């Protein structure tokens, strides 16, 4: 699979009267990560949603491998994985069912034993049949990490857009997460991560500090 390039050119977005960002751009090649930093409410989530195609920008373009993608285009949906604030879990599904459901929607065909292995790697195996509504916040977040683990590099979607992925994770969970991102980048993937925490990532990292009205 060819390495992926994610590029943003001249992106601008206003939310009501507030200008969130204007003329925002960056280039990410295979194996690179972009860390978004800035205070709460500055527009990190909005930028990630624009990159994912969920929110349409007022102006500018998002390019995948040099081709502009309109929001939620087919190319975009095959390449972009968005892990937002919300856990995107069904309360009525168990941990394992949620993972299977997410992978099915990702069109990522992972055999059951590998799914269970991923759950085990994140300490969820004993709770795999517990309904999501009875899991702790940290455990719910770990299901998302298991999904990411099964999407590393060649397997699934190469462009990761992660919004505060380590929310509610303990130190061990945050550590596992960083290893995950590193292996994804090493495999040629690309990541844009909004976070408050320091990230110790191998490979080249760019940082974008977002401020009010810029």
């Amino acid at each position: 699979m060819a390495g992926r390039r994610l590029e943003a050119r001249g992106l601008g977005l206003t939310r009501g009267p507030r200008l969130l960002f204007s003329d925002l751009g960056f280039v990410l090649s295979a194996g690179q990560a972009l860390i978004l930093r800035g205070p709460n409410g500055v527009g990190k989530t909005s930028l990630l949603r624009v990159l994912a195609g969920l929110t349409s920008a007022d102006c500018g373009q998002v390019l995948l491998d040099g081709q502009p993608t309109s929001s939620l285009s087919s190319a975009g949906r095959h390449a972009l994985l968005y892990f937002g604030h919300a856990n995107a879990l069904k309360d009525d599904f168990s941990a394992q069912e949620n993972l299977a459901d997410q992978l099915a929607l990702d069109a990522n065909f992972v055999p059951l034993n590998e799914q269970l292995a991923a759950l085990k790697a994140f300490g969820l195996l004993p709770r795999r049949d517990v309904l999501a509504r009875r899991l702790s916040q940290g455990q719910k977040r770990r299901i998302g990490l298991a999904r990411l683990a099964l999407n590393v590099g060649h397997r699934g979607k190469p462009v990761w857009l992660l919004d505060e992925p380590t929310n509610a994770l303990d130190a061990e969970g945050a550590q596992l997460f960083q290893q995950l991102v590193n292996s994804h980048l090493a495999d040629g993937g690309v990541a844009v991560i909004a976070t408050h925490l320091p990230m110790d990532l191998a490979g080249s990292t760019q940082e974008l500090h977002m401020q009010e009205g810029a």
Partner: protein
Amino acid sequence: MSAEPSADAELAAPERGVWIAFCRDLKLAMRSKGELGQALAFFVIVVSLFPLAIGPETALLKRVAPGVVWVCALLAVMLTLPRVFQSDHLDGTLEQLALSPYPLPLLCAGKMIAHWVTTGLPLAAVAPVLGLQFGLDGRELMVVVAGLLLGTPILTMLGAIGAALVLGVRGGSILMALLVLPLYIPVLIFGAGAAEASMAGIDVSANLSLLGAMLLFGLVTTPFAAAAAVKISLD
């Protein structure tokens, strides 16, 4: 390692999205059995209100039966429409659906079919019993059921568009009713019209074929409109 490429490609066919969304929603519906019975209970109760309101005179009840059954079915379907998208919208899974490689219109189609299986279909199954209460005979009951089987999918499909438009909006359910009820009127007219035609001894095929035509037209168009509405609501 994952399965061979050809099997993968087959599994990744876009149409499979309909099946995936259908199974998912059906499974979730089965997990909240309380909700499943609601539409049915509402339907039965409200239909039974009418004889209490207008008196037990058989001729009159028989005359109003098609209209009453249809209006109550319509309202029962509308009551359950928020179920199609709201839960997914609240827990963030709707965004994942929008971002899935499977085309969103096909995922919406799967959701609509699941919704119909859990609301319209049971309503059509129960309607004959209620029709008996109103004094309809066998042939007339069959026409009522046929009309409901053809019409309730249309109600689900149109209603899903309305439900998607008002996601996250204050007063969403009432607003959705206001948006969707005018669009329901043709279905009501042809559905109830078919039953009345059979009561009058006239040919019902015209009414039922019009319903069928609307159903076919809806099948091809409403998934796209619903997907567009979802994208607008996620913006």
